[in-house]
């Protein structure tokens, strides 16, 4: 390939990676779900047709689960087009990624493969291996009944135990089961006390049939809740007058940082004020854990964080961009030696962040540059509107006239996929922009963002991807820089 082709290839790959990190096919502030899905499906088709290897290698990066599932599906659907060597790498990447995906997503993916009539030998083998690696098939049989049934049927597999097979495929009316969980499910149809032995999501349906009051149900199901279910239900449980669901500060500190930030933003300002010490401590703990060995190593850091009205996200992704910005605030505070966080609204209390007002990014960047930082990070959806394009001008002038030797490294992180541009929105050509899903991925993304600065070298990018793939395939826990996957429990909703 000539140099020009290389350049385009590198740009395409970067663009796709940004999209795969941020896009979820859900409604965003500026675009509807249909637009997002259309735009994303085009990108996937384009990448699969033109750059199959980087497309598969994206599985090793910190892309989101929605795109991981789409990539796996794309690869399996078009297996015939791949060479033997490609298939080998893809198979390993897919198996590794599937192990990291939450089970409900994997079961949904299997369902999609079944509907698309993808049932080649390779797909069946992947299915079989993934199912064999599940720690407890009886739990899956109860919790993901339809998914597991469909998967077994699709791959022509017997259930791990004869009883599970009977549970899934046998007639509805039958005698007791030996496995306690299966029997609890059978008894829960007529015995209220049995449903509290079931996982929360399953028990919820039974509670509805038995017309159990919400408060009683939550009180008694508490021991069965997974950690994230507990986080999610806390506030609604408090509303129902149940106190047992409540997670304490220590438990909150163990939550993934971005999720915790989302939780904090979901609280009313009065609650946030009342629980300020507890919430701040939990956020700091989570941030320190996410920072890991790099804590305190980043020198002087300034951040411009977007809390404009557009960071309220949409009904499908409530306050997501703001939550990411809040999480970044605490993470950068942990990473930096000296940290200055500037919100676009001019507010100084991060805990009380609220999505309102315009986005005067240009002025905030100026304020941030005033502190003479070593690194400047901008977390924004890129809709710079007060006035439009000022951020780009300020950054351009800074780079060309005031700081031509790159004393300050500037990176723009964007949590929102722009369906129209097939990429995250950029602020300025001189400043690299990277998609951002969870604040926890920030260090890895800042490293990756250097490829987006100026003219990208394809060989360098390919080498980086190969290294990440090798690390991903060898690594015991998670994709590099990703901490959420490592501590998720089996069978847990994520």
């Amino acid at each position: 390939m000539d140099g020009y082709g290389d350049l385009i290839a590198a740009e395409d790959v970067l663009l796709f990676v940004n999209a795969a990190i941020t896009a979820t096919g859900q409604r965003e502030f500026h675009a509807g779900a249909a637009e997002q899905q259309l735009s994303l499906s085009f990108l996937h088709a384009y990448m699969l047709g033109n750059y199959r290897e980087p497309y598969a290698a994206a599985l090793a990066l910190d892309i989101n689960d929605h795109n991981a599932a789409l990539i796996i599906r794309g690869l399996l659907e078009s297996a015939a087009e791949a060479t033997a060597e490609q298939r080998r790498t893809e198979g390993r990447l897919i198996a590794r990624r599937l192990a990291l995906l939450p089970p409900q997503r994997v079961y949904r993916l299997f369902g999609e493969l079944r509907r698309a009539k993808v049932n080649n030998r390779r797909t069946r083998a992947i299915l079989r291996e993934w199912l064999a690696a599940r720690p407890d098939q009886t739990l899956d049989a109860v919790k993901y009944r339809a998914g597991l049934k469909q998967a077994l049927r699709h791959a022509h597999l017997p259930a791990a135990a004869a009883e599970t097979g009977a549970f899934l495929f046998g007639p509805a009316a039958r005698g007791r089961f030996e496995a306690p969980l299966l029997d609890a499910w059978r008894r829960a149809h007529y015995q209220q006390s049995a449903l509290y032995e079931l996982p929360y999501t399953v028990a919820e349906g039974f509670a509805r049939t038995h017309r159990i009051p919400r408060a009683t149900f939550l009180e008694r199901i508490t021991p069965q809740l997974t950690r994230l279910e507990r986080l999610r239900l806390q506030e609604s449980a408090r509303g129902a007058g149940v106190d047992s669901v409540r997670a304490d500060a220590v438990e909150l500190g163990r939550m993934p940082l971005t999720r915790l930030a989302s939780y904090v933003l979901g609280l009313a300002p009065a609650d946030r004020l009342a629980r300020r010490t507890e919430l701040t401590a939990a956020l700091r703990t989570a941030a320190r854990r996410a920072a890991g060995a790099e804590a305190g190593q980043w020198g002087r850091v300034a951040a411009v964080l977007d809390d404009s009205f557009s960071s309220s996200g949409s009904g499908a992704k409530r306050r997501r961009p703001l939550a990411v910005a809040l999480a970044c605030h605490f993470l950068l505070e942990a990473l930096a030696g000296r940290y200055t966080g500037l919100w676009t609204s001019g507010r100084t209390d991060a805990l009380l962040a609220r999505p309102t007002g315009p986005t005067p990014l240009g002025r905030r960047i100026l304020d941030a540059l005033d502190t003479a930082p070593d690194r400047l990070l901008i977390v924004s959806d890129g809709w710079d509107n007060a006035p439009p394009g000022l951020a780009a001008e300020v950054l351009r002038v800074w780079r060309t006239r005031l700081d031509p030797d790159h004393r300050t490294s500037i990176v723009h992180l964007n949590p929102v996929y722009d369906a129209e541009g097939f990429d995250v929105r950029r602020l300025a050509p001189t400043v690299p922009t990277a998609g951002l899903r969870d604040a926890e991925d920030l260090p890895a993304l800042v490293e990756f963002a250097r490829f987006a600065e100026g003219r990208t070298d394809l060989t360098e990018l390919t080498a980086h991807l190969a290294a990440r793939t090798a690390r991903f395939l060898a690594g015991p826990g998670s994709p590099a820089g990703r901490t959420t996957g490592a501590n998720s429990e089996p069978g847990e909703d994520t």
Partner: protein
Amino acid sequence: MTNRTTVRLDLTGLTTRPAQVWGGVRLVPLVRHQPIDDLRLHQELFGEEHRTVLLDRRTAYTAYIPHGFVADWTCDRTPAAAYGTQFAAPADRPGAPPERIRIRPPRRLAQRAGADRLRFVPLHLALEGYLALHFGGPTIAWEEWSQQALRRGLSPRAEEAYAGASVRGLADALRVFEIHPGQCGLALYVADALAAAFVVPHPDDYRALHRSLLLDLYGELVHHYALLAAPVPDFRADLRSSPIRSLADLRGAVDRQEQQWAAFHDHTMAEGLLAADYRHRPVHRMGRFTLSRFLPDFRPKQENHLGETITDEHGRIAYLKTFRLSESQVRRGHLLDRLSAHDWRLSAAAAELGITEAQFALRLEAAGFGHLLRQDILDHYRRRHREGR
């Protein structure tokens, strides 16, 4: 019309902030540094879609009125009602429909003493002023005018407008618009034509009423522009021309950029609204505030806005809502104005415009006022026009 003065709109106290663009719609926020606290507006949604207001025994004003504004003011003044204004229901009957409007202000003064609240229907006050323009018809019974024109004036008089929801892209533009802190107003451009200006006294009112722009009326011109226009470009900041050696220089350049934009907007983009003279008619006094409506001079082929204002004792605008007339509406207003200026004498009006009587009559007909002329005279003019005389 009595008590009529010519004024300009005085937007002192409001600063223009950078515009936000969505498709063909450009929204320019107007920010008030000192909010007006002693006058507040809030919205009232009406259940029914049509509303008929009896203006007097013979005249009824029927319109689609999706919402109304309620103005509250705090200084103790005697409220006076006016032509075309709807009063708030008394506090003890909150759900009651708006009062019928009677025509003579003095009577209402007596009725409404003591209340510090006024309900009015946004834009209708202004539109009704336009519809009622020279509504009485010919003042002197020249022979050209038909019996109908002499007996019933311009009645029935109808104009068309589009609801904001049917202006393409407006709903999305208002949804994604990011309201500035302290924002009290908005200038709305469609395909860079000023479609409406909206100002309220207090930022909280604006926040509450922002979406009400979607319920307002927009002229045919605005609707067509929105339908046909391509997306408008952003006015992006540009610092290339300023010499910059330090961060302070950069900051200065940024400030200049903002001032330049504000000046450009106020003196170029909004010139059609702000630099024009308006016939202004106070209709209601509310303490130190005055509710009035204004009509343009009906200059053909130019921007013409009509609207209503609440101004304080210095004439500064606390509340403003405008409606952009479409070209044919301007023409109708213009023709009626000219006729009225010459006491409805066809030949005199035609002479002023430098056209023949026949041409003027045909213009009247094209504008939808054919029924005002006697049929035989109109036929006569038509024949004269055909024969090229």
